[in-house]
């Protein structure tokens, strides 16, 4: 983990209010676990808090990493104005626990479920599974057609299946990722999922008992490194807590109170 400037290679809108940013620098060498994230300083002087953004993929040959972020507020709005060759101060990679793509064996199956801006870390996980030849299927949920991204990218990783769900049915199937999950003929050994808290809860509830579910959590962060207690989440038994930034952001679904 370091705090260094990374050079912006590309910063482009790839779906409605959704941007893909490619960064390059030596720090990329340390990025290897799907589910981990970067804590990015907003290059606009009145922002005192960094923004946590998942690593969506890395290309070690080019020394680049890719982020996909949605413009949801002032900080991410400022990020959209960053231009190639600008530098961003990046702290990372952060996260004590990512998606354990080394856990499944090639005769097991993983279902990846991403909702909205929960999709980017699923893509990194998919690449990692694909490299290890673990069979996986993908279910992605978006609000509407204009918000859809990375469908083709997942397909190119030779997912067994890529299902796109939209709330309004304007693309793919109409419905939620839960509908798609319940339509699966056979439950997979693992589910990896990232998205809004409500979606994670529903995935946990809908999953079969013999399926191991890993969820990636989001929370407003201060330090990003475990020092400030901003990003805590209660354990399922409510007797203790975890810090999302350092104990997670990925947890087994029965570790935490969703």
């Amino acid at each position: 983990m370091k705090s260094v400037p990374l050079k912006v290679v590309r910063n482009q809108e790839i779906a409605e209010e959704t941007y893909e940013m490619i960064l390059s620098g030596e720090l990329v060498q340390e990025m290897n676990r799907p589910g981990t994230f970067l804590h990015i300083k907003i290059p606009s002087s009145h922002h005192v808090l960094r923004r946590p953004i998942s690593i969506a993929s890395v290309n070690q040959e080019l020394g680049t990493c890719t982020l996909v972020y949605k413009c949801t507020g002032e900080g991410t709005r400022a990020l959209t104005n960053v231009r190639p060759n600008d530098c961003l101060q990046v702290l990372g990679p952060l996260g004590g626990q990512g998606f354990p793509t080394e856990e499944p064996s090639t005769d097991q199956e993983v279902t990846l479920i991403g909702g909205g801006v929960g999709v980017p870390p699923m893509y990194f996980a998919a690449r990692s599974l694909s490299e290890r030849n673990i069979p996986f299927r993908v279910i992605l949920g978006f609000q509407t057609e204009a918000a859809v991204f990375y469908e083709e990218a997942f397909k190119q990783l030779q997912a067994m299946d890529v299902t796109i769900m939209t709330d309004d049915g304007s693309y793919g199937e109409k419905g939620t990722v839960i509908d798609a999950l319940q339509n699966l003929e056979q439950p997979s050994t693992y589910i990896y999922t990232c998205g809004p808290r409500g979606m994670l809860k529903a995935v946990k509830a809908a999953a079969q008992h013999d399926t191991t579910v890993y969820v990636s959590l989001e929370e407003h962060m201060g330090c990003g490194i475990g020092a400030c207690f901003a990003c805590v989440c209660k354990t399922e038994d409510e007797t203790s807590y975890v810090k999302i930034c350092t104990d997670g952001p990925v947890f087994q679904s029965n570790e935490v109170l969703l």
Partner: protein
Amino acid sequence: MSERLAVNLPGLSMKNPIMPASGCFGFGREFSELYDLSLLGAIAIKGTTGEQRFGNNTPRVAESPSGMLNSIGLQNPGAKSVRDNELPFLEQFDVPILANVSGSSPEEYVKVVNTLNEASNVGAFEVNISCPNVKTGGIQFGTDPEQAAMLTSLIKEATNKPVYVKLSPNVTDIAAIAKAVEHAGANGLSLINTLIGMRFDWRTKKPILANEKGGLSGPAVKPVALRMVYDVRQVTDLPIIGMGGIESAKDVIEFLIAGADAVAVGTANFTNPFACIEIIDELPTWLDQLNVNQVSELQRRGVVL
């Protein structure tokens, strides 16, 4: 380590006037992976209570222009665990600890002091009478001079270590509180804690923080902090640890001029986790520019006592 930067405060023999502020540095473990904590002047550890606390619901932080709100709610593992697990870890570093003490009742404050008193690396206590983020205790001790004085006396009785009282900015007359705790025996003052603030989510029409209100910190509060350090300096000769929005060596100099003897850096650790040591690094260059040889030459220079 240059002698030019050293400052000596009751219980805290500091290599330089910079310490991370309580609550923004945990108990040092995480930052020790980023740099050598022995480089710091001191460390103010996270506010500690009698028993462990889980704190408030999340979200616990929100942002505002040049500032942030927090409503952590004093999450900490409790005094015993701090004594047994956290303070021993810090012993490997050559840096004095300022132990930040909180509680819901005078008894709880005293209990924390009794528990941490034994730790040899605790150089002094910082009594937080100004936490805006807990329902009972905390801030009410900080807004009433009599209660503040009462609590200070009790704690002074419980320990031989120097006691710094951390003042709340959410008061009409901070100098009056300062005088009251000085009379009650305080050895030093820390100021300021956070200003109570709020943000709303325009989409949901609800407060952003689960706890609704939170404490405002960061550069936004700097002018208020400087004014309060200055006001308090006019009425007392006690050592003052100044804080509120410090981000740079220049800010440190401004606080020293205003009347502080040392400073604490809080929010800036989030913006830049290397803030403290970068400030320490840059300080000598600024002293050069001011033709100042030793930091103490700057202390209380802007003010008439």
